[in-house]
């Protein structure tokens, strides 16, 4: 492992205990994130990408349980920290998060300011409300919110989605975290607003030298904001590498298919390719590669044993039985 890694996730397994059964949402995912780097976790719905984000800040829903693995933040396994240490030392100050639905991230009964001042008081130890307030205004200005004073005193239902998402970013960053997890932060927004927020995140990353984990289902968004991309399918990591490599020269059959599916505004094709079949049920255990039923190249081994992760290039990893044989096609 590289010494500059700010975050290293090793063999993470997460289960949800639901009414219908145990959902094995994440099955042995490893991540390595260097300081200042941004990593996109890309996957379709149900691939487990958001669960990983929540696990890193230890904010899984009550029925979500980390079954195995470690999450090393600056070489400290945060899964072993107590709740108190987590709150005091990690959350907000080191790692923070922005969620998909900006309206649901804020408690409807409190103004943006109340939440923000609580974060500032708890993490920066600013007990003086005046000073905390000023810091908050500064943060709101930083995310380019017009009229920050009004935003401070607004209830969530009084602000639009775009403004709320900016406010959420401001709150998340108000205690100067080093790592920001952005969990589909633009999915619920319109394209023009999405563009604004993406621009904002890129700018903030640079200005605050943030490391970032960006979770999205949209490869276009991934291409825009990230250095590196990790493709997730059914809780399993399929491919990881630099964004350019993944997007222009993918190895895993799933990644390739995925890219072919997407209709592009930039060019018109006569017919879209698609992946037949549908996602596997996460409640039933899989012995082989989870993509096997839908894969054109599947062989016997694919249904029997799970593929190992192979390094196929510089910081380029693929989990596919065919990867080496095909030699990086």
């Amino acid at each position, binding site marked *: 492992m590289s010494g500059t890694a700010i975050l290293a996730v090793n063999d993470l397994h997460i289960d949800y205990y639901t*009414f219908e059964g*145990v959902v094995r949402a994440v099955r042995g995912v490893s991540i390595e994130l260097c300081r200042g780097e941004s990593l996109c976790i890309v996957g379709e719905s149900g691939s487990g990408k958001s669960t990983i984000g929540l696990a890193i800040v230890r904010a899984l*829903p009550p*029925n979500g349980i980390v079954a195995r693995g470690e999450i090393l933040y600056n070489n400290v396994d945060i899964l072993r920290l107590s709740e108190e240490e987590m709150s005091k030392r990690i959350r907000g100050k080191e790692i923070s998060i922005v969620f998909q639905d900006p309206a649901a991230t804020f408690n409807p009964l409190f103004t943006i300011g109340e939440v923000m001042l609580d974060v500032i008081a708890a993490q920066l130890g600013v007990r003086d409300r005046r000073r905390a307030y000023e810091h908050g205004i500064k943060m709101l200005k930083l995310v380019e919110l017009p009229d920050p004073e009004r935003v401070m005193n607004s209830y969530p239902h009084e602000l639009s989605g775009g403004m709320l998402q900016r406010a959420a970013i401001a709150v998340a960053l108000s205690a100067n975290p080093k790592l920001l997890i952005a969990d589909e932060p633009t999915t619920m927004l319109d394209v023009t607003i999405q563009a604004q927020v993406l621009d904002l995140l890129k700018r903030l990353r640079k200005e605050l030298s943030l490391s970032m984990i960006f979770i999205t289902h949209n490869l276009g968004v991934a291409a825009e904001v990230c250095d590196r991309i990790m493709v997730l399918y059914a809780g399993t990591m399929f491919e990881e590498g630099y964004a350019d490599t993944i997007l222009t020269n993918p190895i895993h059959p799933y990644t390739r298919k995925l890219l072919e599916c997407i209709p592009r505004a930039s060019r018109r094709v006569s017919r879209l390719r698609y992946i037949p079949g549908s996602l596997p049920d996460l409640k039933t255990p899989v012995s082989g590669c989870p993509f096997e039923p839908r894969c054109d190249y599947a062989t016997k081994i694919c249904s029997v044993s799970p593929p190992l992760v192979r390094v196929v290039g510089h910081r380029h990893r693929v989990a596919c039985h065919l990867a080496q044989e095909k030699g990086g096609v």
Partner: protein
Amino acid sequence: MGLNEIASVLKLIKSNPLSMLGIIIVATFIVIGVASPYIAPYPSDAWGYSYNLETRLLPPSPRYPFGTDEMGRDLFSRVLLGARFSLIIAVGVVSIALVIGVVVGLTAGYMGGFAGMVLMRLTDMFLAFPPLLLAIAFAATLGRGLFNVIIALALSWWPWYARLVYIQVNSVKNLPFIDAARIIGLSPVKIMFKHVLPNSITPVVIQAALDMGSAVLEAAGLSFLGIGVPPPTPEWGLLVSQGWALINSAWWLSFFPGIAIVVTVVGFNLLADTFQEVMDPRLRSTMVMRGM
């Protein structure tokens, strides 16, 4: 509530001893309600067709498990028969209220407009009374009697169902599948009965079934206040209230009928609890089921 939900309800009931208890209690209640005249050890005591000077006010004993009353009658038989009256009241009240409520709620909810507004304002007028108070006013006006009690409770109860149906219909009627039905060209009546009603009625019907416990409770309250079922009907609330007159020396007269009420209503409430947890998807998603 489709097959899936029913399946998960059954699953939950199986796994939860409290829900199981609820089912057992409710089933027992219904069985006793139907069969009590045949299974009561002293049927003529149960109906009040007999009296016995020798056995007045005996405390509970193996022969008379709940003791005897001031007429020397077996209280156990009377309490068993009481289940029948509670069952009649519960079913009667709930079904009448349900019919009125569904008609009003569906009409107001789907038709909307002026008629709908008038219907809902009417409903609101009834809802402005505390629960049971309106039933008291109706019962006082109509006079005593099993039928009047049912009518009084039903008249005070339908607005709750009307509102529930109204809310359900409103949440359903703007769903895309209703739009789709309109686009297909179905008539409003067909849409109402084929698409809106089947999709809004289940929670209401379940609620109604579970409300039978409350009906037992409220009917008992009316009896206690002297405006419910008249004696010599062995209705539980009436038995409690009559037992009160002798409670200093014969505690069992009030105690056992009251226990019967509590147990029955607990049964219905346990079921209600189960259904609520199953039907509220937000609670369900966080439901922790271990060892599955």
